[in-house]
């Protein structure tokens, strides 16, 4: 394998490239799908892909192939150089130098190697059974269990040569509860881990089942203004994309981020602390280095409500005259973009229970279904799996409640974050309480 990367680098350099970067991903994957309360299909896949990025007088060429035959790699390198010869020059184009990378522990489980499709099927079955046995009214619409074992290699003409293995097990379950003519809200739950021993699809299934059962018998309510508590899933659906776009330097440079020009300013309640941290191995986005080989680090993005930094790859960093934050992302079949890694919101002091007990009138929002504009933050949609909260007590489920507003306003109106946090793939999130929300009866 080592030879292939350097073969590509040498070939491109000999044809005139000034800088060359080669990224190789080799992955083995098994996945089992659930549909209509039954296992549906099983899939297994072995795939490798190599992406060759070259610069020639500041012009970019990029060629990707999944054929790792040495002749084909040489041809691919030659085509990337040819492409660079006809591309316009961009003075910010850059392939980074050597950086010191400390390899993370805890993102690769040796046992992943012997994890077979049969094991994935067993896990999917357990998840399905756990949901169905919680209550016979639970109906599972779809779900999956997947295991991925990937090897990442990155080398460039500046002497960088990195390798890392990652194992990821992830699962999801979606459906509703049916009781006669009463159909609950849909619920979706997902989780994942890097290690075999932490796989716990049954708990995810039980939480899903409990949520849909609890939302049976939903009642219409009158419109009111009050507080909402977003579950981590609802936070992902309503808030996360807006923040992810706003802190992305590429969006800032293209003037499509509301945070442009707000470094050092207050953009949220002082309760909010946001980090992007690929070195947190709980998140499934954990890795030692980014898509360009820059060492990952913990980036504090919002501290006590104040915007501290944007996320950069080498290209956008050069444009702004700053250093890359290690946020080059993307697969081997594209040149690097700017991406978040693990999106981490700091925990608050109170427990979820305590946070709810302080509320006079509000709604616990399990999920949000609607439209969110990632640029200007406007949202409107329907509360799913909502529970009424009155005088500190969780009350009956509610239906047909609409919420509309602006995510940036919501950030300023955060009145509580829970001590408990959940890991949802690449997000680590507490429950979030937000004031000043108008709930409109449908």
């Amino acid at each position, binding site marked *: 394998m080592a030879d292939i990367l350097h073969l590509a680098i040498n070939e491109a350099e000999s044809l005139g490239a000034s800088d060359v970067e080669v990224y190789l991903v080799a992955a083995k994957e098994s996945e089992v799908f659930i549909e209509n309360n039954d296992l549906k299909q099983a899939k*297994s*896949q072995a*795939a490798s892909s190599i992406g060759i990025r070259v610069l020639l007088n500041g012009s970019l060429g990029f060629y990707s192939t*999944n054929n790792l035959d040495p002749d084909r790699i040489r041809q691919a390198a030659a085509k990337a150089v040819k*492409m660079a010869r*006809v591309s316009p020059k961009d003075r910010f184009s850059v392939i980074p130098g050597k950086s010191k990378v400390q390899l993370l522990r805890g993102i690769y489980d040796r046992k992943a190697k012997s994890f077979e*499709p*049969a094991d994935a*099927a067993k896990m999917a079955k357990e998840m399905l059974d756990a949901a169905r046995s919680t209550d016979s009214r639970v109906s599972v619409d779809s779900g999956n269990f997947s295991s991925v074992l990937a090897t990442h290699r990155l080398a460039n003409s500046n002497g960088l040569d990195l390798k890392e293995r990652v194992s990821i097990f992830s699962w999801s379950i979606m459906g509703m509860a049916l009781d006669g003519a009463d159909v609950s809200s849909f619920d979706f739950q997902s989780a994942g881990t890097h290690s075999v021993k932490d796989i716990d699809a049954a708990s995810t299934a039980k939480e899903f089942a409990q949520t849909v059962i609890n939302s049976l018998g939903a009642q219409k309510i009158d419109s009111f203004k009050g507080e909402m508590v977003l579950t981590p899933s609802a936070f992902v659906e309503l808030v996360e994309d807006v923040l992810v776009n706003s802190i992305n330097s590429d969006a800032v440079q293209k003037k499509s981020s509301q945070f442009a020009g707000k470094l050092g300013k207050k953009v949220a309640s002082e309760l909010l602390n946001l980090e992007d941290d690929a070195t947190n191995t709980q998140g499934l986005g954990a890795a030692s280095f980014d898509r360009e080989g820059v060492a990952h680090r913990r980036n504090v993005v919002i501290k006590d409500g104040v915007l501290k930094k944007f996320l950069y790859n080498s290209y956008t960093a050069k444009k702004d005259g700053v250093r890359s934050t290690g946020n080059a992302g993307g697969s081997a*079949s594209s040149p690097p973009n700017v991406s978040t890694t693990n999106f981490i919101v700091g925990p608050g002091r109170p427990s979820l229970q305590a946070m709810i007990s302080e509320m006079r009138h509000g709604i616990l929002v399990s999920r949000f279904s609607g439209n969110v504009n990632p640029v200007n933050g406007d949202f409107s949609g329907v509360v799913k799996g909502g529970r009424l909260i009155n005088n500190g007590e969780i009350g009956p489920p509610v239906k047909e409640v609409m919420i509309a507003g602006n995510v940036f306003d919501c950030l300023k109106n955060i009145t509580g974050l829970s001590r408990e946090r959940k890991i949802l793939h690449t997000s680590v999130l507490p429950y979030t309480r937000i004031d000043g929300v108008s709930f409109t009866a449908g």
Partner: protein
Amino acid sequence: MKSDAGIMDRLQSLLSNGKYVEARYQSRLVTEVNFVNGRLERIKTVENAGCGIRVLVDGCWGFSSTSDIAAEGLRDSLEQALSVARVLAESKKEKVKGLAQSKMATGTFSAKVRGNLADIDIEDKVRVTKEAEAATRKHSSIIKTASATYREILDHKILVNSDGAAVELYDSKPEFNIVAIAKKGGKNITANEGIGITGGWQDLFKKSHLELAQTAADKAEKLLEAKHPAGERTTLILDPGMVGLLCHEAIGHTVEADFVLSGSVVKDKMGQQVASSLVTLVDSGRSDIADNAAGTIAVDDEGVEAGRTVVIKEGVLTSYLHNRESAFIFGTASTGNARAFAYSDEPLIRMRNTYIEPRSDSLDEMVKETRHGYLVKGARNGQADANGEFMFGAQETYLIEKGEIKGILRGASISGNAFDVLKSVDMVGNKFEYDIGTGYCGKYQPAKVDGGGPHIRCTAIVGGMQ
């Protein structure tokens, strides 16, 4: 793509164990060039080749894919597919009962192209994209942002199965898209113009890249000052793109047999009147009536020839869209709708080119016979539910009063129930076009599809601002 030699033989050698085995080699080359505001935003070529193997064991499907296409790699992958199918068979309740008998395709099929894309230098692809983007901005000072994208997908497939399919397929699907954003005062508007086809370089640029740029820029300029139409339920004349979107998004998905089985709105409607008798709706693997439809495929990914399927004949529902598994359940033949996007995807029931057949009315007559209504042009995004309720965006609308077009208005959303809309059709035009070829249909995996028709006159809700 020269390393494909001997693959047909290696795939054939996987077929010898008394079960249904399907092996599909696919080599794909995607090239993309994108300029935004004078800057090269994206350039890349991606080459992906590998084999997807699907087996049916004890009534369960197993699927495995690999990029290792040497004999040993293929054997290992077959073993994986067999083993996952067996694992599933242990706990799956609902089993596959059988596959419909189908005539299996053999031979070589190549998309008709004028100007082989592989022979066009990357330099030309960069040049046209750069020129078109620059021309869009140069058109008018109110155009503040422009983007031009060239994209091509070249496929070589070899497909065999244990029921006798043995085909080699060559496909070529390029597309070219321009976006123009005009701004003045507090107003802004986004207009686009694009083309997506099955064909070659000359087919793609029947209208030159600069003409396409001109059209996009013109549209943005005209629409910037235009007012929004009032919201109302009224008479609408839909252009071929809107008709295509309606056929695909709002009708087509409801007649996909897998959706029918999970309870779509047409599940008990076979043989019944579901549309005006003026409506004949077809989904076809061929580029019927007009050339270069983007969803054209010669053979589907189960080895069945992808012919013409009449879904609605003169208003009566006549067929669902099937793969071999659903056709067996319904006691009919596969319609050749099993499609997989990449080698690593398994085939699913997907549409191809979905359209309404032309009849005799000219657009002029349709306008002349409309007392009050709108001409709706330029399909945008769309959403539709399983019950046929839809909401589509249109780029431009034109007010019609007393048989005359009164002027351009901004885009609007069009909504209604697709079957009610088809029942309301009272005029069907005579000029046919495909016009949604730049889009991709998403159903677990993407698929290149097309749709179109003539202009049709119907009743639906035009929704004001969008």
